[in-house]
């Protein structure tokens, strides 16, 4: 120890600024702030434009004035939408579908992930990969065979599912279950094996191990999966467009398009207002659960 200290003192003084850690870090920070700002502008301008437009009358929107300024602010778009039974119906349909889909997804994917991650059975590894592979099939490829399936189903049983909002409760989980199962497998796999062994020795059944140990411990992953399932079902456009047509069965994204675009007349003010209000629920959920969401995603990333 003393030897090296002596040698250090004898050596010529180094230029401390050159290549030092803090200097590298400062530059990394500057660059990251630069790109973050760029990205923030890029992603925030459209919603800002929507917000501005939502406070304008139809006349002002079509007038050739500065689109970034409101000359005659109005709340009429909001008032009209929020007092319109149709819009409230769309909103409720969306909410109902999303809540049910999230519930169904969690009820299927959490036990499935637990079984695939922990109960070693014949073919469990293959099955786990298979679950993920199904997620890779684009949903645009699936709506035709799905539609056909429901037609055949109704021919055989007489139960009509097409053009009922609850058909979406069957369709959406085909998108959400594989991905949520995959997230939860990764999260469950990161829980040390001794924890379930301890629970089993303590006298817990598999089901009790899941509900009393795994679900509480994996709560961040569970919330990440919940947010994902909610976002998918809230924002889904193609499937509801295909499977539902009557106005009272529509969900928000499709409802706005079909009811506020009449022929070639676009009611831009209300479209923007409707879309903004529709974006509010996911935004509120994100804001409250963001910390969990990030924790869940990173855990899945390193241990998947």
């Amino acid at each position: 120890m003393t030897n090296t200290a002596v040698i250090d003192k004898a050596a010529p003084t180094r230029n401390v600024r050159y290549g030092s850690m803090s200097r590298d870090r400062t530059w990394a920070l500057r660059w990251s702030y630069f790109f973050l700002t760029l990205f923030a502008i890029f992603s925030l301008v459209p919603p800002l434009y929507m917000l501005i437009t939502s406070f304008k009358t139809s006349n002002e929107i079509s007038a050739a004035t500065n689109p970034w300024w409101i000359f005659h602010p109005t709340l009429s778009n909001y008032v009209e939408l929020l007092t319109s039974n149709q819009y409230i119906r769309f909103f409720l349909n969306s909410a109902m579908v999303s809540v049910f889909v999230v519930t169904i997804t969690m009820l299927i994917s959490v036990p499935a992930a637990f079984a695939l991650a922990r109960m070693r059975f014949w073919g469990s590894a293959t099955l786990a990969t298979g679950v993920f592979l199904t997620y890779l099939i684009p949903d645009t490829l699936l709506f035709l065979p799905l539609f056909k399936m429901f037609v055949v189903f109704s021919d055989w049983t007489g139960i009509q599912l097409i053009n009922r909002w609850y058909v979406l409760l069957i369709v959406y989980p085909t998108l959400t279950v594989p991905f949520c199962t995959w997230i939860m497998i990764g999260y469950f796999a990161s829980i040390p094996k001794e924890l379930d062994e301890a629970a089993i020795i303590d006298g817990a059944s598999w089901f009790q191990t899941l509900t009393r140990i795994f679900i509480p411990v994996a709560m961040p992953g569970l919330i990440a999966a919940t947010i994902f399932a909610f976002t998918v079902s809230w924002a889904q456009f193609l499937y509801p467009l295909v499977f539902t047509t009557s106005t009272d069965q529509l969900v928000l994204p499709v409802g706005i398009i079909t009811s506020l675009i009449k022929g070639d007349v676009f009611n831009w003010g209300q479209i923007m207002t409707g879309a903004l209000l529709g974006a509010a629920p996911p935004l509120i959920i994100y804001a409250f659960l963001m910390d969990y969401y990030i924790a869940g995603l990173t855990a899945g990333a390193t241990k998947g």
Partner: protein
Amino acid sequence: MADVTLRKVIKRYDEVEAVRGIDLDIADHEFVVLVGPSGCGKSTTLRMIAGLEDITDGDIMIGGDVVNDVPPKDRDIAMVFQNYALYPHMTVAENMSFGLRLKHYPKAEITSRVTEAARMLDITDLIDRKPKQLSGGQRQRVAMGRAIVRNPKVFLFDEPLSNLDAKLRVQMRIEIKKVHQKVRTTTVYVTHDQVEAMTLADRVVVMNHGRIEQIGTPNELYHHPATRFVAGFIGSPAMNFVPARLEEVGGKLHIRLTDRIGFPLPESRAARYQNVARNEKLLLGLRPEHITEANAHLEPGVETFDTVLDVTEPMGMETLIYFTLEGAQICGRVNPNAGARDGGPLRLAVDLNNMHLLNEVTGVVL
């Protein structure tokens, strides 16, 4: 509380035989330590007793009942894991009472048992904390508390101290011994640390390659090892082994190490080795404490020789010395004032009253 019996227990994973037919009787109240190098099958054996691993063949009995196909929760055992395995979302009290709550014990009973165990382990102040707010030693106490409150027939410990630093390990070792003295539950304890095995056990089971090498009290294993593996594994620094053969000089039995060094055997030993073939390849086993500096006055059976030391390690109360004999590195323990120095000459005394003679080929102690 109960005795544990293993009869010809075998564990096979596909092609690999991890445990190759173990017979073991653990008496009620006994503290038995399974010790051996990694991969010797000790943890697998413990996990089979716990029911976390199926047994391929043989029988395991707890309290006289065969439990081969009984699930872990019905075996009435408690286990302490190497990484503690505390439930991270529960407080210390909830962790300890989890098993009792699953079995729907009355609330008052649970509280009294948890309080009692916490008092015994000195963790009463920590009862409302979460595991992540605890130090390693505290977590280990909670893990033990979780086992104690269940009041099981058998405690199983799977290398519980190997995640702790050296100082804490010694402290917790004493703690575990104290707990066992109080609750007297039959205990099976797995470790790779022979010091832990020696200090804790009523009886030590030394395992190697899926078999039991020897079972005995710590002193039996130390003074009367049955095989070269046990002789070399138990004791630190390890026992020295030097190639040797027996010869007869003037009607008396001698042991010859090198052309230069050979000693007459003491009376007690000579009789024991009389029937060993003179040309057989043997190993002389001597513990470091039986190689010391030569005094003016020699006890019977103590012989001297001169050597040049390679390295010395001053430990304070003693100095470890290393030298080479017939290509083997030999360790001895001498008085710090004996004048041992790196590369220096020293006259050494070997205590042949405590020697072991081993067959070099079979490794069996003669």
